[in-house]
C-alpha cells in the first residue's frame, strides 16, 4: 500500500470516538457599514503606520502626482502594464516629466535580470483594497505579472477609493473568490520589512522598500 493510502486509512480508521462538527459563527468578523470616505481614512491610517505612502488623487490629477513622486525619488524608469488603461493613459499622456516607461511582454527569462538590476519602479492596478487591515488586493495577470509588484524597489499601486472593502471577508464574498481562484492572489499591506535583527524594524528586505498608493477619488 502506498503512503497515500496508508495515511488515509489511518485517518479513517481512527480508534477514538466520533468527532464533532462544531458550528462556525463568522459574525465576529462583521463590522458596521461605513462610507467610502471613512474606509479611505481607515485604510490610509493603517498602511501609513507601516510605512506605506498614500496620495489622494482624482482621475485627472494622478499622473501629474505620479510624475512628482517618481522625480523626487530619482527613479530613472517605470515599468507599466502593456494593456491596462493605466499603462495606456501613461503612454498617451505625452508628459516629459515622467521617467522612461518600460513594458515587458515576453516570458520572464529574457527580462528577469534587467528587472532585478535596472528597474527602479513599477506601477500596477489593484482589485480593490481592505480598510480594516490597510491592504491592497492584487490578482497578477499576464499584463501585470507577479514580479512587477515584488522586484522593483518602488511599487506604485493605483486604488479606486470605491473599490475599498471594510473587511477581507467582505471582499472575498463580494468578489466571489471561491468560484475560481487565479494562479496567484495577493494581499499587499505595506513595503517589505523584517524585525529579525533584535526586533528592530528594517524595510525593503526582499520586496519593495517603498509602497506608494494612489487613491483615486
Amino acid at each position, binding site marked *: 500500500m502506498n503512503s497515500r493510502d496508508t*495515511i*488515509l486509512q489511518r485517518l479513517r480508521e481512527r480508534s477514538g470516538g466520533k468527532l464533532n462538527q462544531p*458550528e*462556525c459563527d463568522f459574525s465576529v468578523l462583521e463590522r458596521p457599514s461605513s462610507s467610502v470616505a471613512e474606509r479611505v481614512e481607515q485604510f490610509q491610517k493603517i498602511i501609513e503606520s507601516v510605512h506605506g505612502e498614500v496620495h489622494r488623487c482624482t482621475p485627472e490629477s494622478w499622473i501629474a502626482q505620479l510624475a512628482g513622486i517618481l522625480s523626487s525619488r530619482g527613479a530613472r524608469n517605470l515599468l507599466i502594464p502593456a494593456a491596462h488603461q493605466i499603462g495606456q493613459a501613461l503612454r498617451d499622456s505625452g508628459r516629459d516629466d515622467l521617467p522612461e516607461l518600460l513594458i515587458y511582454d515576453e516570458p520572464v527569462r529574457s527580462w528577469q535580470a534587467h528587472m532585478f538590476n535596472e528597474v527602479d519602479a513599477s506601477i500596477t492596478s489593484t482589485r480593490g483594497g481592505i480598510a480594516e487591515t490597510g491592504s491592497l488586493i492584487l490578482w497578477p495577470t499576464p499584463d501585470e505579472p507577479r514580479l512587477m509588484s515584488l522586484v522593483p524597489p518602488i511599487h506604485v499601486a493605483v486604488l479606486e477609493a470605491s473599490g475599498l472593502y471594510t473587511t477581507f471577508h467582505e471582499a472575498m464574498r463580494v468578489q466571489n473568490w471561491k468560484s475560481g481562484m487565479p494562479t496567484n492572489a495577493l494581499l499587499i499591506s505595506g513595503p517589505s520589512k*523584517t524585525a529579525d*535583527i533584535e526586533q528592530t524594524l528594517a524595510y525593503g528586505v526582499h520586496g519593495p522598500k517603498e509602497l506608494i498608493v494612489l487613491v483615486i477619488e
Partner: protein
Amino acid sequence: MTQAPHHTDVREFHPRARAAIADPKIRKNFRKAMDGLITKRKDAFEGWDLEALRDLGANIRLRALANLPDLLEQLEKKLTENGVKVHWAIDGDEACRIIRDICVARNAKTVIKGKSMVTEEMELNHYLDDHDIEALESDLGEYIVQLAGETPSHIIMPAIHKNTGEISELMHEKTGTDLSSDVEYLTASARQQLREKFMNADVGVSGVNFAVAETGTLCLVENEGNGRMTTTVPPCHIAVTGIEKVVGNLEDVVPLLALLTRSATGQHITTYFNMISGPRKPEELDGPEEVHLVLVDNGRSSIYQDDELLDTLRCIRCGACMNHCPVYTRVGGHTYGTTYPGPIGKILMPHLIGLDEGRHLPTASSLCGACGEVCPVKIPIPDLLVRLRQESVDGDKLNPAKVRGHGAKRGTLEALVWRGWSWMHARPGAYRLGTTVASRLRRLQPGKLGGWTRYRTAPKLAARTLHERMKERGQ
C-alpha cells in the same frame, strides 16, 4: 548556544536549562523579546471580541480535523485539477526523498528556501546537502541561523536569541560585511546577497500556512517578500506541509489569518498574504512552470487517533504560547533541543520523537496556563501536558497509555512514593495520625530538602494541624 541538530540529545534538557539560566545574555535577549511580543499581541486585539474570535478559530480547526481524510482528498483533487502535483510522505525521510527526486529529475543543484518549520522537522537542508544539493535559507532570521550553523530558537523569529552585535559579527565573518550595528545596512547587505541566489536557484521550497480544500489553494504569510520570491522566481516550486494544515473552505482562512498574525507578532496582517492555486499558465509571463505539494504525516496520524491528543493538531504555528511561557522566556528555544520549542513543542514533540527521548518535555512546565490562555485556537495545553505526564509513567490503568515511548519515565522509586502517598491519603485515620506525628516531630524536619531548599527556606509544619484544632472546637 550552537547545537548541530543530528547530535542534540533531547534528554539532556536539565544541563542545557541550567546553562541557559546562568547565561545573562540569553536571559536578557529573551526577556526583552518576549515582553515586546506580549505587549504587541495585546494591542493588536484591541477592539476585537477576542473570545468569540478564538472560538471561531478553534471551531474551524476542529471542523477541519473532523473531516481530515475527506478534506485531504478534496485538496489533492482540486490541486491536481489546477496543475499542481501532490505527493504523500509517511515520514520526514520519505518527504526528503520525494523532494530530492524532484530536484534530481530537474538537474537541480540549488534550492532556495522560504521559512518552513516542517522542513526543519525533517532536517531537509542536511539531507539535500548530503546529496550534493545546496539549500539556502532566504528568510532573514533563518539565513542568520544558517550562517551560524544553528537551528531556530523560536518558530516565528528564528534568530531571536541573537542581538545585533552578535549578528553583525556573524555576517562579517561569514559574508564579509562591515562590522556595523546599523540594522538597515545589515538588512541591505543580506538583500543584495540573496537577490543573486533567487535569480539563479533551480527550485524554491516553501512551507504552507493554510491549505484550502475548496479551491486547491496554498496560503502563505510573510513580511519580507522572500516567500513570494521563493514561490515565483525559480522554475519549480515545492510546497511542504503537515497533513493537519488543511481547512475546508476559502473563507476559513480569514479568521485564522486574523488570529495568526496578531498572535504571532502583534500585526493586523503581514506585509504579504500569498495565495497560490497553480503553476504558471501558458499565457502568463512569470511564476514557476512546475508546482508540487508534499503532504507530510510524520506522526500526525498517530496523534489523530486519540480524542484528547488530537487537539494538538489544531495548532496554526503562531508562537504565542512560547512568547507567554515563563519557562521558555528563561531558558530560550535551544534548551529544548527540539524542532519546536516551548509549549507547542512540549505537546507535539513527544509524538514525533517518543516519550523516551522526550522524557523531560512534559514536566518542564509549572502548568501556569498562560499558553492555553493565549492560544488562538484554544488548545488546552496544560491538560495535554498532564495527559503526557500520565503517558510517561503509565499512570492510569483505566485509560491505558499509547503514545510512543510511554512508561519510559516510570521509576520504581517514584511509583512507590506515590503508592505510599496514596495509601495514606486515602485513609483518613492514617492521614490524621501521620500528620499529627509529623507536626510533633517538626523540629526534626530536615533543613535540606533538595531542589527546594537550594533557593528557599523549608516549609514549616504547624504545631497543631487544622484537624486537631477543629476537633478541639467540637467540629
